[in-house]
């Protein structure tokens, strides 16, 4: 019997499970193969929606569904917190003491935010990387009547690299619509020497920032907050005063991966082969999505395009056949929407060998993002797109 164990019920874990269930249907039915997803909460959350809670167009309850309902009926679901991975015995121990053995292990364990890593973050800064925090930011924006808004990034890597810039554009549009733009300043702090990491996107975004009167501060990686003087300081040695501070919090991989000796501290990102997605050269252990140390966007889209590769490799191993080269190598594909405000957006699509060539922002790609967000539950986790 072959035991496939998937840790994590986000985009990557759920999609991999459902794709494997299709490929291994016969063996799952006979019991020759078992396929199990372990998820901490048993609730699947559509995280890209958090930003829209902060922008006032989304509710937290619309962003969650029971994981069981998204999984193929041939997939077992175990709800529990992972405590450690025992590689020598090919087993995973849960916090409640249960042990789960594996022959193939998939680590789709995501990333976690650690705002507490920056002193005064919790009392001074807002963010939109959880439903609760996004709602608090919404309340702060509702109470805002004018002053300096500073938007920055307080750690690397972080989920969805375009999100802070999108939020800057969307807040600017909101302030204008509310008639308080004249009494407000907007400052966007970019970690690098331009507005956005992709040069073509940066060239597109910079005139929009200028047109909207959003001041761009380059090479500003947020390091510390001084609550007394109400200033945020960069690791490059500069500082900016704020009235309302919006920061992307630091992110890390899961602690149990570090405790199990699979991911190095302090980041906790799994050393992952950029093509095979194997962890540290292990033939039966794969990582995908945010959990990896690959130089790719930490975004659901990355996991979405990695899941078929992990599926093909595990299915080939279980069925004792060769890997189909058309599906067994990950070539770095990522695709995501980018909002520029005022009902316009664009599309970023790239892989290791092909840089993105985003179309001029228009309503079509904004609507594309809206439709994608609404139809997500019926498409991505079930492998329909």
């Amino acid at each position, binding site marked *: 019997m072959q035991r496939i164990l998937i840790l994590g019920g986000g985009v990557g874990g759920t999609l991999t499970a459902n794709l494997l269930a299709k490929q291994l249907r016969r063996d799952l039915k006979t019991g020759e193969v078992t396929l199990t997803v372990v998820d901490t909460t048993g609730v699947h959350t559509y995280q890209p929606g958090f930003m829209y809670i902060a922008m006032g167009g989304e509710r937290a309850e619309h962003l969650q569904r029971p994981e069981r309902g998204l999984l193929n009926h041939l997939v077992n679901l175990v709800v529990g917190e992972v405590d450690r991975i025992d590689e020598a015995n090919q087993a995973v121990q849960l916090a409640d003491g249960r042990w789960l053995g594996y022959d193939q292990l998939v680590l789709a364990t995501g990333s976690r935010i650690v705002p507490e890593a920056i002193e005064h973050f919790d009392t001074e800064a807002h963010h939109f990387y959880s439903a609760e925090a996004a709602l608090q930011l919404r309340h702060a924006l509702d109470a805002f009547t004018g002053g300096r808004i500073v938007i920055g990034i307080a*750690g*690397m*890597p972080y989920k969805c*690299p*375009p999100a802070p810039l999108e939020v800057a554009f969307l807040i600017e549009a909101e302030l204008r619509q509310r008639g308080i733009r004249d009494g407000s300043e907007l400052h966007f702090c970019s*970690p*690098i*020497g331009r507005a956005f*990491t*992709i*040069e073509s996107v940066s060239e597109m975004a910079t005139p929009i920032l200028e047109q909207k009167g959003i001041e761009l501060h380059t*090479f500003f*990686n947020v390091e510390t907050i001084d609550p007394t003087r109400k200033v945020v300081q960069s*690791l*490059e*040695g500069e500082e900016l005063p704020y009235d309302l501070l919006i920061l992307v919090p630091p992110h890390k991989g899961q602690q149990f991966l570090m405790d199990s000796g699979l991911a190095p501290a*302090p*980041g906790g990102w799994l050393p992952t082969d*950029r093509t095979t997605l194997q962890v540290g050269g292990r033939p039966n252990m794969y990582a995908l999505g945010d959990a990896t140390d690959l*130089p*790719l*966007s930490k975004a659901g889209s990355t996991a979405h395009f990695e899941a078929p590769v992990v599926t093909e490799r595990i299915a080939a191993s279980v069925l004792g056949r060769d890997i189909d080269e058309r599906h067994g190598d990950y070539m*770095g594909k*990522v695709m995501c929407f980018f909002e520029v405000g005022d009902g316009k957006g664009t599309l*970023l699509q*790239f*892989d*290791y*060998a092909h*840089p*993105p060539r985003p179309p001029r922002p228009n309503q079509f790609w904004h609507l594309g993002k809206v439709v994608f967000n609404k139809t997500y539950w019926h498409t991505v986790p079930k492998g329909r797109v």
Partner: protein
Amino acid sequence: MTDATASDTPTRIIDARGSFCPGPLMELIRGIRESTPGTVMSVYSSDSGSRTDIPKWIAKAGHHLVAVVPRDGFDEIIVEKTH
């Protein structure tokens, strides 16, 4: 471009080839944040813009650019975290 010495041997490699988002500089900033002063790291970048982007940030952040070495199809940019 500067020359590397034996004491500048990288102890960490950041393979950012083919990284468009977040990109090689962002990967280096992550490496700097996660390392202790004195760490020497190599960034592999296939983005020609890194030859200017990375040295500019290194100068601004006060770290040490050890060398920029052209390799087969990519650049190796060696950086020492100084503080």
